[in-house]
């Protein structure tokens, strides 16, 4: 398997994972907007989703997550199609998501003392994405140039 082909597979997997995260974050956003919080069937969900950390400047935190996952999906898809510049953007977005995820896990564990399963799923997906980005084989500039699908972009 060539490096370029491996990359395509890795980025495709990343795009698919981002889709799951997008669905998760969209669901949490809608749930927040509708005032529903019994999404987990347990008490911990409302402790997390009803906390002050569930919004940032009045916007549901999950909405930022949805945007981030959409950005990851888009850039991973473009990267899979050979757009090298999308890879840089993808790496940056996943790095930011990784940091935010660690912070939110800290909030759940040490401030709220409660965990929300949907948030944990999102955290797992982000860690998985970070792992994929790290594991994706790099290509030489020549190969990258050769596989650049849309250099005009």
């Amino acid at each position, binding site marked *: 398997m060539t490096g370029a082909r491996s990359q395509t597979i890795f980025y495709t997997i990343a795009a698919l994972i981002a*889709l799951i995260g*997008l*669905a998760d974050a*969209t*669901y949490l*956003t*809608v*749930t*927040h*907007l*509708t*005032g*529903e*919080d*019994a999404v987990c069937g*347990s*008490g*911990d969900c*409302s*402790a*997390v*989703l*009803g*906390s*002050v*950390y*569930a*919004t940032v400047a*009045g916007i549901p935190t999950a909405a930022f997550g*949805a945007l981030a996952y*959409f950005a990851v*999906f*888009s850039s991973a*898809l*473009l990267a*899979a*199609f050979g*757009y090298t510049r999308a890879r840089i953007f993808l790496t940056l977005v996943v790095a930011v998501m990784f940091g935010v995820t660690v912070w939110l896990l800290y909030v759940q564990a040490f*401030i*709220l*003392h*409660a965990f929300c399963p949907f948030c944990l799923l999102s955290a797992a997906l982000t860690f998985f994405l970070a792992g994929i980005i790290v594991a994706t084989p790099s290509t030489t500039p020549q190969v990258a140039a050769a596989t650049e*699908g*849309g250099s005009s972009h």
Partner: protein
Amino acid sequence: MKRYLPFVIIAAVAVLTVGAGAILYRAKQRAIAGGGVTRPSTNEVGAEPLHVRGQPGAPVTLEEFGDFQCPSCATAAEVIGKLEQDYSPRLRVVWRNFPLAMHAHALEAALAAEAAGLQGHFWEMHDLLYKDQAVWSRALDPATAGQFFAAYARSLRLDVERFARDSTSDEVKARVISDGEHGVSRGVKNTPTLFINDREVRSPFSPERLHEAIDTALAETTPKASGADRGSPPAKIQPGEGRK
């Protein structure tokens, strides 16, 4: 075509996500947050608690900051009710309002409970609101939720007209806001938040955990009696006992 394919896919996913979100939102048919409940934001400390159940001289005080529409608060209410029976007369319970912005009818419920309190039936309304939480919290709008609360007031034989008047009065609003401000000043961030003798208890609020916390508090206040506390038979709380 391949050149445009990823952009077509991205656009399709964007449209699908927005569409699915809108469909889900409509399916839930809930009012969008923003019209109604506002979390108090000042740091002013509130007044003395208005709602206390139990003996005034009880060695242990369990203080709850709660939201009537919060499912975990309803679960905690059941646990606390049993604790009151188990530890009476050594435990008193203090209730404070902390309606969260994310719950569409939490503020109206808090106002209803306070309005009932003005007629001396806060705790009865408190218990009813939690018992029927799954029913009234599904009301599509505040007016429908208000009809539920009026029906509860009627079932408690309250003066319903006064109840309706009080529910929107400045006095009742001030009570709820005061509790919220007090909660914020004590670092309350979510509901339920429980304090036992001013020490915050961390979730989950299982019966075992709360028993342990209360036993510890009892041991601290009456060190020699701590062993007997665990072995003493549960005392029955009389209806209306210690209610304020």
